């Protein structure tokens, strides 16, 4: 068996290489072509978008985007999305990072229970919890506010923030902190002078990750906002009646930050998930 395999391995080396390279190219195309088609639609005039047959090249016409910008409520929704995502980003890091630090540095009673609680949230369809919160928010005056929605999005993002910062902090040897303590630092100054400068890029990456989670969330946003729709909620609500070119322009606006953000955090994506799995 193994002999045959190695013999054929040599003779099919070139063919195998070809299959491998074309597989990679094909899978790249599989990701990129739908994105390209969305771009074509976005950069075509509304007439071109609704016409048939469609050109596979963009018309470089900003008509669709202008229509999008002019559509009543769209820019407000865009602004709301950014506000909610920004609050979510700040909240989840402020709340999540200390816990990540605690997990990576201390052995304490209840640590396993705590980890389980964090992992458990990942196994739950969290947006569902927006339903009772809608009632609760009406009572507390948080209904239909950016802050209220950001709280729900933070619930979504904070488990990731904890696990990601846990893995980032674990990547910084405890020895560095101990060295700082022996050189005159308290726990706090050792953290600000040694740990923080080293961890800052990683923290930024996980903050961006939280931003994207909120930016993309549809269900809770649709349930919890009425007047102050986020972009996703607005698009979902107008899905059945809005014209095609509005949908495509909206989809494009949704996708662009994602492209930028994934590019910004690409170095950290894998490191973040490495330890978080264990």
């Amino acid at each position, binding site marked *: 068996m193994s002999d045959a395999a190695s013999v054929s391995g040599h003779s099919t080396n070139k063919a195998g290489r070809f299959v491998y390279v074309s597989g990679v190219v094909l899978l790249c195309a599989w990701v990129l072509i739908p994105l390209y088609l969305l771009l074509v639609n976005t950069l075509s005039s509304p007439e071109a978008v609704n016409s048939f047959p469609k050109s596979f090249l963009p018309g470089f016409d900003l008509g669709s985007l202008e229509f999008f910008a002019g559509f009543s409520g769209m820019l407000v929704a865009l602004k709301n999305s950014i506000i909610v995502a920004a609050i979510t980003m700040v909240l989840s890091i402020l709340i999540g990072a200390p816990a990540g630090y605690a997990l990576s540095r201390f052995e304490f009673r209840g640590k396993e229970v705590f980890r389980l609680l964090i992992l458990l949230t990942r196994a739950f369809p969290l947006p569902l919890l927006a339903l009772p919160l809608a009632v609760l928010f009406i009572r507390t005056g948080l209904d239909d506010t950016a802050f209220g929605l950001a709280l729900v999005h933070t619930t979504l993002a904070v488990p990731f923030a904890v696990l990601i910062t846990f893995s980032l902090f674990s990547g910084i040897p405890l020895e560095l902190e101990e060295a700082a303590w022996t050189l005159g*630092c308290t726990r706090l100054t050792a953290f600000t002078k040694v740990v923080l400068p080293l961890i800052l890029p990683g923290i930024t990456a996980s903050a961006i990750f939280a931003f994207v989670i909120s930016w993309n969330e549809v269900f809770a946003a649709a349930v919890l906002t009425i007047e102050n729709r986020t972009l996703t909620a607005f698009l979902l609500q107008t899905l059945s009646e809005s014209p095609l070119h509005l949908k495509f322009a909206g989809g494009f606006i949704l996708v662009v930050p994602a492209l930028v953000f994934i590019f910004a955090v690409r170095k950290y994506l894998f490191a973040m998930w490495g330890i978080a799995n264990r």
Partner: protein
Amino acid sequence: MAVIEIKNVAKRFGEYQALQDINLTIEDQEFMVLLGASGCGKSTLLRIICGLETATEGEVWIGGKRVDHLPPKDRGISMVFQNYAVFPHLTVFENIAFGLRMKKLPDDEVTRRVERTAGLMHIDQLLQRYSGELSGGQRQRVAVARALAMEPDVILMDEPLSNLDALLRMEMRAELKGVLAESNTTAIYVTHDQVEAMSMADRISVMHKGEIVQAASPIEVYRNPAAEFVAGFIGNPPMNFLPAAPAGSGQWHVAGQVIEGPQVDRALRFAVRPEDVRPAETGLTAVARIVEPLGAHLLVTCDIEGEMFRAVLDSDLAIRSGDKLILAPQPDRVRWFDPETTKAVA
């Protein structure tokens, strides 16, 4: 003046007893080595002295002040870590200056001290580099310079040379000893390497299973091991042991020979170092099993009445596996141990 006193220190991690009833006084400017196999508690003891770990019981005194409730920064110590712990986001200069800046020393004093210690450790050319641009040996030098720049009463070192290759380790060993002798600080040095311990220490504390088995000068530890563990741990190859039965009035039966020993009337263990036996007319009858030429010497592993026995002999002797040897132990180098307590018997 910094005498270190450790009084009745014990440490438990849950069920696990890492240290028990440690009592040790380290004199001012003494170079004390804590020596033992991994897991013996030597690093834990060092970390308790440093303040990175809290003792479950007992007291630590440094320079006449009780310190066991103080954080590391208030103990007048500095430490060199096993993996150097050179801060990657700071230059070598700022690494050495780190502790001085925390003390808020004036800039010119900081510069003066950094340059002095950097010169001492021969890294004055590297001050503007980052840790990623340094070799392991250079990082080691930065870590030592950083500790020395603090001008501490006590310097603690946790296996500082264990990550260096053999040649560099030998070089650093001598250099470190010289630098520390000049700095007039008390030093505690943790290692599992007995050569390091022998060559550097004023005194060695041999640790085993959370206890200090013997604390004495290197020669004393080597010549007069206080327990079988020390005898079997120190020396390469370690001491040989053979069962001994009393033959009355200080005479002992050892492998069919009668040897003079202590005046006790229970079974003991006879012990002698491999280099303290010589081929002779009369002595212990041994059969050579493995012969390893080591250049200056031959290491011969033999069989004496079913017990393994090693001898280091002159390499001029033509010994082959299977040869019969008569080995005479040097009388003043023979030691005796009580198999019950494993302690030495005078």
